[in-house]
């Protein structure tokens, strides 16, 4: 399965994007997000970008005030996931131009579309930025 969920949460613990690759109820999600953000906020820059939480391993990376958190299985390559996060941010940056938290908020569906191109069934399937963005640009043109 690999990736179990991808979250974007800001410093105040407010969720900006959530995509789960296994079903959790709203209550479970809410609890999970709260616990994870608290754990990650308590850590400093020198510490690992990886945290164990229940049966997940969380790989997280902070950009400005926004945390990108990816929950993975135990046998994932954590460094690769860390770079996957960066690839996601670079891709969004390419699309939005100097992407900021507000871009994601205003274009939540676009951010999701990008994720849909990059990750399916919890596996990374596409890492070429042009392949990820082409369908989204085409869609922008036609509509």
């Amino acid at each position, binding site marked *: *399965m690999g990736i179990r969920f991808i979250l974007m949460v800001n*410093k*105040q*613990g*407010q969720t900006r*994007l959530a995509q789960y690759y296994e079903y959790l109820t*709203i209550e479970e999600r809410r609890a999970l*997000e709260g616990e994870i953000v608290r754990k990650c906020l308590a*850590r400093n*820059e*020198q*510490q*690992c*970008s*990886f*945290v*164990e939480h229940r049966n997940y391993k969380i790989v997280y990376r*902070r*950009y*400005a005030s*926004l945390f990108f958190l990816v929950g993975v299985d135990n046998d994932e*390559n954590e*460094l*690769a996931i860390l*770079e*996957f996060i*960066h690839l996601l941010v*670079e891709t969004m*940056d*390419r699309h*939005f*131009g*100097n*992407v*900021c*938290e*507000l*871009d994601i*908020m*205003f274009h939540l*569906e676009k951010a*999701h*579309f990008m994720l*849909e191109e990059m990750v*399916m*069934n919890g*596996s*990374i*399937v*596409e*890492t*070429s*930025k*042009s*392949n990820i963005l082409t*369908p989204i640009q*085409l*869609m*922008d043109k036609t*509509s």
Partner: protein
Amino acid sequence: MGSQGGFGQSKEFLDLIKSIGETRSKAEEDRIVLHEIETLKRRISEPDIPKRKMKEYIIRLVYVEMLGHDASFGYIHAVKMTHDDNLLLKRTGYLAVTLFLNEDHDLIILIVNTIQKDLKSDNYLVVCAALNAVCKLINEETIPAVLPQVVELLDHTKEAVRKKAIMALHRFYQKSPSSVSHLLSNFRKRLRDNDPGVMGATLCPLFDLITIDVNSYKDLVISFVSILKQVAERRLPKSYDYHQIPAPFIQIRLLKILGLLGIGDKQASGSMYTVIGDIIKKCDSSSNIGNAVLYESICCVSSIYPNPKLLEAAADLISRFLKSDSHNLKYMGIDALGQLIKISPEIAEKHQLAVIDCLEDPDDTLKRKTFELLYKMTMSSNVEVIVDRMIDYMISINDNHYKTYIASRCVELAEQFAPSNHWFIQTMNKVFEHAGDLVNVKVAHNLMRLIAEGFGEDAAAADSLLRSSAVESYLSIIGEPKLPSVFLQVICWVLGEYGTADGNYSASYITGKLCDVAEAYSNDETVKAYAVTALTKIYAFEITAGRKVDMLSECQSLVEELSASHSTDLQQRAYELLALTRLDVHAIESIMPPDASCEDIEIDKNLSFLNSYVQQSLENGAQPYIPENELAGTWNINNLRSQDQHEFSQHGLRFEAYELPKPPVQPTVSPPSLSSSTELVPVPEPSYLRESHQVSSATSVSDAGSSELKLRLDGVQRKWGKLKYSSPSSSTSSSTSQKPVIGVTQADVSSSVNSKPRDTYDSRKSHVDPEKQKLAASLFGGSSKTEKRPSSSHKTAKASGNAVDGSQEPKTAVVSNEVHVNKTYHEPPPDLLDLGEQTFSSSTSLDPFKQLEGLLDPSQVTSTRNHSVAAATKAPDIMAIYAETTSSAQTSSDGYSIPSSGDDMNLIFGFSNATTNISHGETTTVTPLSQSIKGPNLKDALQKDSMVRQMGVTPSTQNPNLFKDLLG
């Protein structure tokens, strides 16, 4: 791009986003969302909502759910939106539906039809949107509805469609392997797809398939190797490059697959050596992604059939990781070390100090990873140090999930490697005391069994010493408040059984303590039951020993209270205690012989002692007893005769439906569970059971009952330990041989931990403190002393060639008196960039892979040499097509550059700086700040700001972070 086109959203939507963005507390956010729910409920069901408006409502619903509230009232509108003809609306509808619904939701049935229609669409983007939904929404029952279409799409002209169709098939395989079992060849076929994206995606299902069944995919080894080679040689389009590494995510997946295929397969592994070696040589170790690929190579090398050259290269990589300043790399290093020591255990020793640094690091993640490593390398020589460390850590944390985990690890290691019984008991005490409610009950029974059985054989003196020390340790612990129930049960049992055995403690002292326990834990019936039975035993032993029994008043009141208890079990125990104290010495001696918990109970299954009684009854005209099986036989005959099964079945059903009772279990056969080392047969309460058998001997003990009792415990002792430690002769020899190491460390570690505060740790850069050396020696020292000298001299020679850095010298000076430590610190300084070349040039002057080829047998050499030929035949056009696309992609991607595509590390630190700036800025001026941070592309940023302001959203003091570039 998106922002230039304008947000295109209504004022209402912008206001909502703005207010959500500016909230500073969860409560405030909840208020906004609840208000939004009310608005949406009202508005969304109005008639004739324009489609654009509806899309916005749907997105607002997504927000509602994302922020933790129920939006189910609007699900149906999202479902409706999937029917729309407009692509953007359709895809938004699908997105919302996949976010809202799980695959078993009732509304899915309304979407399957739409999906079927969309899969046939001429517009490939519509097909892609539908395939995305297929991956999220189709469950086992609905697979057949879309499967034929998905299979058809595997040959679609658009690569994006083929890719998603493959993933849909992957999803079906995950959901129900049997539904696609006839289609698995499609995955092999798509591996040779002309498009690298499709090929890369196909690796995901293939990885799953190979995990389950390696042997069916051995023929693909050559293909995987040739693909990996082409990827590493940059034959994929440039757009797959990430930070100058060619398609790293595909490389990583291929390495994972090769790691699986090469397990224990010399031939398959042989064909991988060259390409893995090339990757390790070429990969840039200055970037995170480069290290991610290198880490995966190490994993692959340690999983496939070992190759000395590659193992050496992997070991070098690990030492680079461990010496890095980055915690992430250290973490990966520790993990990789855990993989590699499975093949070459001696390499752990080289990194002992680095490992100890990680163990003592305040970072929990790193610490836990290191415990994981230590767990893997635990031996009898270092078990004490490792388990002590684990317990200390276990005590310090609050996380119950991990506490349970590490407690069970401690128990496991202690059972497996305990050097002495005394240590085992002490360790168990600690585990119970601090994590008692989290450990398995079996562990408690194990401990009781150990104390009861002791060393077995002919070590009666040692046994009684063990018991005395157990009793003593329990008496000192028993007063502590809030002990876990399981632990108290053990304590009560041991005190009852052995409390007065050595004569150090009087019966009144022990019984007093037991009464205290029963009183302090009056809510816990199990503990009270254990306590009362322990009291019974102590009084019985006293009477047997001919001493006069004065029951303490508190004990009397306890028994009185319990004999009126709601629990019948407690009542019975209390009455038994009372009855027992009134019996004479001889009766008691046969009911409760002292120290007999391990004795077998002889069970007379024929109940021969009743013969005379039966005889007498028969003579008096009683009906003779018909055994059950004979009785069943007669019923059956009756049954045949009567021909009226219905009427009869009411009575006879039982005998017909069930088989005849099985022949009784032989009591001499030791049950299977006794021989396994982890499974524990619950130790029944021997005295209690024995009593019930003998006192009320008229009740027949069934066969099942007797086999459950299983008090024949001979031949099962020392379950928890290795044989050599349990037999007295070898245990003494091994302990003496290790005494120099273990003894010294134990004393020093404990004393210096107390005396030396944290500052020694902080100043460790300048010198290695002796405490750590000791720890290192005790962790890594015990195993391979003989191997050390030659290897250390070798290392020294190597290090001198590398010109030891000046800052390293103090370390060497301090350390040089210690043989084990010596070695590690002659290694080159932790410079990631330089080290790569150094190690390779210094280790061998020859090309390692030339040598490697020499090691292979001739047939394999030819196969490796002919890689390209094989690849050309197996996957004919992959290279050519990749080359074509490369050139085209190059031109298209030329104009693109990321504002800060430079060093990753800088990025992270840059962000942290930026954030601190912001937090200062919040109090003073904010609007100019939000512009000044915009970084390289100021024009874009200004445009965006003015756009946002036009829309009525201004950066306010509330949350300036909203406007900050993520890629500063």
